[in-house]
């Protein structure tokens, strides 16, 4: 994993050099630190290792893509990063917290506060308005009503959906739905924006719009992790980690 570590330090240099990026007291701010992560699934008689020993770091304000063919362990890695799952072995530090040993409810809290998910199929509540969908993380975060509305409205206006707030998902186009999902992901000011094939269900033009939105969010200082198997999408990121057979095959800074 030495390659990865070296690559990371190079990246961080690039990140710091970029103006407008957050750094606390001028120090390099490590947001994610994965240390020798293993994920093993017990399939009856045999054990399947989805990840065997993955280590890397992500700094605040990075724009990272994780790519790999299906079955590479990329989804498993995404679930771990998003705190939907815990590693079988190894340590995962997210924003200074050791997530790898947390129980279900602690993980739920971390997901609520630190992670904003964007899914391929949007995963919006079909019966709720755009505004309500965006408010959902705030509800579970215990934000009182008036402030919640205010925050959700700001998040929606940030993705140019001010005029669609009372619409339900089935009244919105695919691109609009994904923007609602992005607003929902960002409304709680998470540490990372974690997008799983965010353009997989969109046409080319809309995909382009969404990727431009990510670009803008990145320039605003958000930490973005894209999980995708599409090379042109991954190429929009500043750093690409390629996964194969549960290991990091390549970790390169591209732009």
């Amino acid at each position, binding site marked *: 994993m030495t390659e990865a570590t070296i690559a990371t330090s190079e990246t961080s240099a690039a990140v710091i050099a970029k103006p*407008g990026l*957050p750094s606390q007291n001028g120090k390099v701010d490590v947001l994610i630190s994965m240390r020798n992560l293993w994920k093993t699934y017990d399939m009856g008689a045999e054990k399947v290792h989805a990840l065997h020993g993955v280590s890397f770091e992500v700094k*605040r304000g990075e724009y990272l893509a994780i790519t790999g063919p299906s079955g590479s362990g990329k989804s498993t890695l995404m*679930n771990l990063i*998003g705190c*939907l*799952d815990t590693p079988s072995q190894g340590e995962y530090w997210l924003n200074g917290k050791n997530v790898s040993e947390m129980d*279900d*409810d602690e993980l*739920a*809290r971390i*997901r*609520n*506060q630190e992670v904003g*998910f964007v*899914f391929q199929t949007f*995963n*919006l*509540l079909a*019966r709720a308005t755009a505004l309500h969908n965006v408010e*959902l*993380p705030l*509800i*579970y*975060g*215990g*934000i*009182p*009503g008036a402030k*919640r509305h205010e*925050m959700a409205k*700001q*998040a929606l*206006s*940030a993705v140019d959906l001010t005029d669609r707030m009372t619409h339900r998902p089935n009244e919105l186009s695919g691109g609009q739905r994904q923007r609602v999902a992005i607003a*929902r992901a*960002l409304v*709680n*000011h998470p540490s990372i924006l974690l997008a799983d094939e965010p353009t997989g269900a969109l046409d080319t033009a809309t995909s382009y719009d969404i990727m431009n939105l990510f670009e803008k*969010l990145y320039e*605003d*200082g*958000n930490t973005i992790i894209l999980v995708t198997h599409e090379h042109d999408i991954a190429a929009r990121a500043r750093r690409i980690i390629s996964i194969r057979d549960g290991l990091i095959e390549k970790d390169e800074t591209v732009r």
Partner: protein
Amino acid sequence: MSLRSDAKPEATGFGRRLSLPGRIGSFPSLRIAALWESFLVAAASLRQNKLRTGLTLVGIIVGVTAVIAVVTIIKGLDQTVASTFSSQGSTVFTISKRPQVITSREDFIKFNKRKDVVREDAEAIFRSCTACWRTGIAANSFEIAKHGDQKFEGVRLRAITPAAMFDIDGVTIDVGRLWTESESAAAREVCVVGPDIVTNLFPDLPIDRAIGQDIWTGGHRYTIIGVLQPLGKIFGASRDNQIYIPYANFEKNFGAHNSLVVFVQTETAQQLEHAEDQARAIMRNRRGKTFHDEDDGFALETQDVFLNLYNSATSNIYIVTIGVSAISLVVGGIVVMNIMLVSVTERTKEIGIRKAVGARRKDILTQFLIEAVTVTAIGGVLGVLSGFGVAWLIALLIGFPLLFSVWSAVLGVSMSSIVGLVSGLWPAWRAAKLDPIEALRSE
């Protein structure tokens, strides 16, 4: 604008996330927002699935209706019985040859061998019982009453003396008058009747025009001198179909062979027991009983015997009836559980989304429990209403007063809510422990 608060906190107005003390500090108080969210979600989901909600409601409504109707009817009956038997008050006891309730043939034969209670017994009690206040005697006979072509069967001819027996019986004159001492002593053919006698024999006459009319009963002609105030019905049977005549006249016209009943009243309820003891001693003495004899040779009873008999006969029936009707609530609970399980399966994806954005097990558990309790509480309210409706209908048919108690309404709603809580628990727990990854992957 920037969504990243760390970058430009002053521009966004959000403030820096980690420096928001209210945020972290208020985390445990998310209950109210999450509870309200749960309630809204529950309401929306119940609205969305009208058929499913309707079926669940029917299951609960039937159960609650059964329980509420049964409880209400029972309370009504209890009240009727209690008020009827306590109309004579707790200051009255009776002495008679046979007790009012006989439970076996052997007893019946034994009681029949006793000496008749006669007028002299009453006089002895009147003379010697110092704790006794008023003493009277009464004898009953069931007769047919007639006037012209009008005929009224099953009339209770009640012979009493003295006139204070009207008080002891708890009846009061409505129109007309009671008989005088001289009329009573002279064994005159005068009578005071219950309002049913008038309405049946003189259907065209107003009550007050019945005074002075003649009626035939037991082969003798009597003149109506007074009409009693109505007493109403008990279990559908009227208590206003009686004809009161002076006891002396009864002896003259019907003979004195009937064993009569001595009524004794004390001035206060506290004196009752003392008076009973005195009367019992006097009567035992008159029957020649020593303390070796177990049997009194007469029956000394208060009206409590009826209440006690009624209570002992019905309390078990009531428990069983309420228990059986509660079974339908259990069935309702199973319906709720079934439907909640379907609901959880159908909404696995939604649960996954909620978990992904930070819902904890507790939040999901609460959401589904609230849904179950909401539907069952609504069913409970509707069930209470329809239960009262059913009870009202039955009360109307049988004829007893209806007691709509707040207590049973509260009981109905809280019982159905508990059913919802219990039957929602397992489905809700299944939802709460769903793996977020699996749940998100489901379609």
